[in-house]
């Protein structure tokens, strides 16, 4: 089903020497504990910010006809497909919010 597709994993996002800003923010804000879900959280977070920027609405977007804006509610809804068994959610929200350029 993905023959010929290009797939970017966490390894393709950044390297230990040259972190992606989202990876750096997760480290700074301690957005993980065991690390099991972290690659997915980071890849999703990068995609979520892109989706907001490109105008994709979400379940919590107030209007369908105006561009969605980053907010904690938008972030929580859009990241809801990524489950963290250890409950690092509040620090993840802080990390993504910083990368989005908004005050936490």
């Amino acid at each position, binding site marked *: *089903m993905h*023959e010929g597709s290009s797939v970017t994993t966490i390894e393709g996002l950044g390297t230990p020497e040259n972190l992606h800003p989202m990876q750096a923010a997760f480290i700074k804000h301690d957005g993980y504990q065991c690390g099991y879900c972290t690659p997915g959280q980071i890849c*999703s977070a990068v*995609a*979520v910010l892109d*989706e907001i920027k*490109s*105008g*994709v*609405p*979400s*379940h919590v*977007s107030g209007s*369908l*006809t105006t561009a969605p804006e980053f907010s904690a509610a938008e972030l929580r809804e*859009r990241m*809801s*497909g990524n489950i963290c068994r250890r409950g690092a959610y509040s620090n993840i929200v802080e990390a993504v919010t910083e990368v989005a350029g908004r005050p936490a």
Partner: protein
Amino acid sequence: MKSFTYEKVNSPAAAATAGSTTGSAKFIAGGTNLLDLTKLEIETSAHLIDVNGLGLDKIEPTAEGGLRIGALVRNTALAADERVRRDYGLLSRALLAGASGQLRNKATTAGNLLQRTRCPYFYDTNQPCNKRTPGSGCSAIGGVARSLAVIGASEACIATHPSDMAVAMRALDATVETVGPDARTRAIAIADFHRLPGDTSMDLAQAQAAPGVLAIVTADNAGKSARAVTIRRSCSAGRRLSTITRP
């Protein structure tokens, strides 16, 4: 471990032919429902027909002022389409109310319509289920059934179709375009596409092979957004009161 064969087809008619000639074959597009069921061995397809890349991923205006939504348009793309957001708000809202971003990015319009009618007991292979094994009984009836069908069910099965999008399409009186092995297309009113189980088990109602869906066509809905908002609210609050079975 159950082995299966896989083929990629290059036209919708070829897909319909492969689906009708190969026993126990299933179309795979996004795979968001089929893979889950396959892992649990509830679906044990001997053959998968990959229908991705058939060019059915476009949303086009119709001469009548509606939209023709290709079978392979992903749920995210449909919900985010500017025309859908403006004129078919209930469709966008219904899509965004379901699943997660990852699933919506993969799930297709036709796959959403054709996903299995189901309930938690259908997924629990330790429980008897008339849908999985006709005649074995139904654990949902008398079980934890708060979210299952109240009306439009049968005495054998109270599972519901999980699609919010299908409810919106029904409210919009959409038409489903299908193609058969002879490459002839058919138009099926959405009201006739999903069927009530009657007095049979759901499994019997679903025995008919899934048609090769090409597109879903909606009528002109411009300027009817107020109606859309009303319907959307009733959809999310009461959708479990409706139950539909796919053909």
